């Protein structure tokens, strides 16, 4: 078991190092960093001086280690377009994205489990069928289309919810601003979080439903029924517990996707988060921001995957035997 954990941690570090190396290549060799920083009229001597000063003439290995050291300290240089340190830009944008992701995750888990239980227990009612048919839209429609349709319905036609921004944000601790303490902030987060969370909601709904249907056929549930326990105790005390293991895994892994897909949702709703910043950086070839975003997202993904893997390991004792033997083949 300890071998497995160490193996997984080493793998995660390897993934991070590869990502960092790709970023480093992007940073130093795609385009000329000096050209991106100075104006047309800078003389060749000045350029060479700047090159020397930035250490761009050092051996690649030395440069890579310097890049790693700076990245570990959150220093990704100065944005080409905004002319401000990336270190200052990220904290401005991070809370908005994390709040959006958090709201979508809560929404999709709560609604997904509730609707999953309902459709799993009442399989043939028309309500269940309607929910399942509706959930098809969640998997087959592109995120931005869902966003546009929601905007058209709730903002343009009905005019009850805002279609852009995150409402009034207030500062709480340090640099963290939140929109969750104002009414306009709550109104603003409704449509984006539905848009972002719909796919995950569908996924969780379908998993819970399938697991529920499977578990209800097992012997221990029949036994519980034979003991004369009430439906409520059986459904929620016995059956639900066993459906939740895959939900934990999927939710954990999907948090990564939520962060990735927030790029799209943030663009549709002009949400002032990391994703919107990244897309602008791609438009303007603003490499420092792209690199910073890449490293952060990779770190997020790797950490979440690691936690989910370890969690899975703890939740499901069967794995502790299998994984130890089949470790290398996965």
């Amino acid at each position: 078991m300890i071998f497995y954990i160490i193996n997984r941690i080493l793998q995660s570090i390897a993934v991070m190092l590869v990502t960092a190396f790709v970023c480093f290549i992007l940073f130093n060799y795609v385009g000329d960093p000096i050209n991106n920083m100075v104006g047309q009229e800078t003389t060749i001597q000045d350029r060479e001086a700047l090159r020397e000063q930035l250490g761009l003439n050092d051996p690649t290995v030395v440069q890579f280690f310097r890049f790693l050291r700076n990245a570990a300290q959150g220093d990704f240089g100065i944005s080409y377009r905004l002319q401000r340190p990336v270190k200052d830009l990220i904290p401005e944008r991070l809370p908005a994205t994390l709040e959006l992701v958090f709201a979508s995750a809560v929404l999709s888990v709560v609604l997904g489990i509730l609707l999953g239980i309902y459709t799993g227990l009442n399989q043939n009612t028309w309500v269940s069928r309607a929910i399942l048919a509706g959930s098809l839209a969640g998997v087959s429609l592109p995120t931005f289309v869902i966003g546009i349709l929601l905007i058209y319905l709730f903002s343009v036609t009905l005019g009850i919810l805002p279609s852009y921004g995150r409402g009034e944000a207030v500062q709480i601790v340090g640099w963290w601003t939140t929109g969750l303490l104002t009414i306009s902030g709550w109104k603003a987060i409704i449509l984006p979080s539905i848009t972002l969370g719909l796919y995950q909601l569908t996924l969780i709904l379908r998993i819970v439903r399938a697991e529920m249907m499977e578990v209800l056929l097992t012997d221990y549930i029949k036994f519980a029924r034979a003991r004369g326990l009430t439906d409520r105790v059986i459904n929620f005390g016995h059956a639900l517990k066993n459906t939740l293991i895959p939900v934990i895994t999927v939710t954990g892994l999907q948090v990564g996707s939520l962060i990735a897909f927030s790029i799209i949702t943030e663009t549709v709703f002009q949400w002032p988060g990391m994703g919107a910043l990244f897309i602008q950086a791609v438009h303007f070839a603003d490499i420092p921001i792209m690199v910073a975003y890449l490293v952060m997202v990779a770190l997020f993904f790797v950490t979440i995957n690691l936690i989910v893997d370890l969690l899975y390991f703890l939740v499901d004792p069967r794995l502790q035997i299998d994984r130890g033997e089949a470790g290398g083949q996965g």
Partner: protein
Amino acid sequence: MISGWLKRIIDHDISYSFTHSPVTVLSALMTLIILVSSALAPVLTPHDPFNPASLDIMDAFTPPAWVDGGTWKYPLGTDDQGRDILSTIMFGNRISLIVGFLSVILSIVIGVTLGMVSGYIGGWLDALIMRLADAQLTIPSILIALLVDGIARVSLPRELHDEIAIYVLIFSIGIAAWPQYARVTRSGTMVEKNKEYIAAARVSNVHPVMIMLRHIIPNVMGPNLVLATIGVALAIIIEATLSFLGVGVPPTTPSLGTLIRIGNEFLFSGEWWITIFPVVALIFLVLSVNLIGDWLRDTFNPKLR
């Protein structure tokens, strides 16, 4: 003879399952209409939306024909430059389909090659390729496509990039989806390579590359083609999303995603048709390809569910 052949097709299980699934028949019909209309777009479209000479700026923002102020000259209305929406959608479908198909072909070529090598040769090469696939599968393909496209945008000069934008797009979407094909191919190859006919080929000194090309490929392509149908729908979605984000195809040759992005600016000023019709077209396209893919998967390879 032809009638016997036709009879065999009609009597076959697959055509039974096809004709008895109205949803599939409907989506096949829908796909056929979209395919034909986009293949023949230059002939069928009532207006040439990309010829500035034929555009009349006075016709801009004409609503659909059945709304007050609309004319049947432009059945679905016009956009901000006076382009006929119906025509731009037909051309947009064309680009979406081209990108969808070509990028899936690219994914299959990469995925099948790597998967086959991985399954047939095994050893450290197998471990390396599969770890790579695992690592890539943890990141959503849309993010990978976005990154590849972003890097191309940074490293290529702007004029060149606009010119080859569509190929960059195909490449980045294709690169993003190979691991699934590699996995399916690898497991298929590992089953096939232990069968007797492969052993026979090996003892008769057939070169491993020939064995893979002649004997293994035909036997692992089935599940790959089923995956590919759903892959096309997925690729169309990614293309539309990237174009919507403004990093896909340039506005001069708009795909559905580009059209939606352009129209999105006018959603609030009341010109809903500029966005909503391309959105509806995209939904129809993705949904019908998806439903056909689902049906294919259920019919040919129930194990993949």
